[in-house]
């Protein structure tokens, strides 16, 4: 399966701490994306990293990609209670419309 797998499945931290979520995948990719989903809502695209990039930043988010290990990590620094959500990685492989594959997600809880 091309679907990614996030690790851990659930993470609980105190406000102000950093949160790190990992994603592993199985096939070669064009890019990898991270999404956030608040409970009962749609997914929101956070960041995209291309296969030739190793690190990308967006505000308090830092994404790394290691194509040799077929893995990526999402780091949220100085977490806030509002960061509580599920986070999904999704990989894009090949061309065409049906080329985005989602992982099973990490449920992050930030305790105030």
């Amino acid at each position, binding site marked *: 399966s091309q*679907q990614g797998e996030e690790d851990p499945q659930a993470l609980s931290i105190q406000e102000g701490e950093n949160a790190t979520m990992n994603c592993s995948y199985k096939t070669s990719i*064009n*890019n990898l*994306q991270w*999404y956030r989903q608040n409970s*009962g*809502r*749609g*997914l*929101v*695209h956070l960041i*995209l990293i291309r296969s030739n990039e190793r690190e990308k930043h967006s505000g308090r988010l830092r994404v790394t990609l290691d194509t040799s290990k077929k893995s990526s990590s999402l780091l949220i620094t100085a977490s806030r209670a509002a960061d509580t959500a599920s986070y*999904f990685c*999704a990989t*894009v492989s090949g*061309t065409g*419309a*049906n*080329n*985005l594959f*989602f*992982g*099973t*997600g990490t*449920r992050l809880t930030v305790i105030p």
Partner: protein
Amino acid sequence: SQTIHQWPATLVQPVGSPLSLECTVEGTSNPNLYWYRQAAGRGLQLLFYSVGIGQISSEVPQNLSASRPQDRQFILSSKKLLLSDSGFYLCAWSPTQQGSGGYTFGSGTRLTVV
């Protein structure tokens, strides 16, 4: 700017009743459109995608069907709902050419079949 609308937000339907969920996109032309289903606490399962009017691809055999009567309209339907059709349904769009952006999702429909 591009927006995506999905409705209704919640729906409770009896077994055997029909279903129609609608999704519309604004601010873009010829988008790729998608219907996903998400079971509680799980990832997303792609149900259907469309690259153009009248062009529907199904990913999994199921009790549902999809249609794209207009460029920016995507409809998920069923003639007779089953209990197993309960779930959270998400519509999404992406540019025809995958570029620097990701998918844009609607706010979802919580379907409960009773």
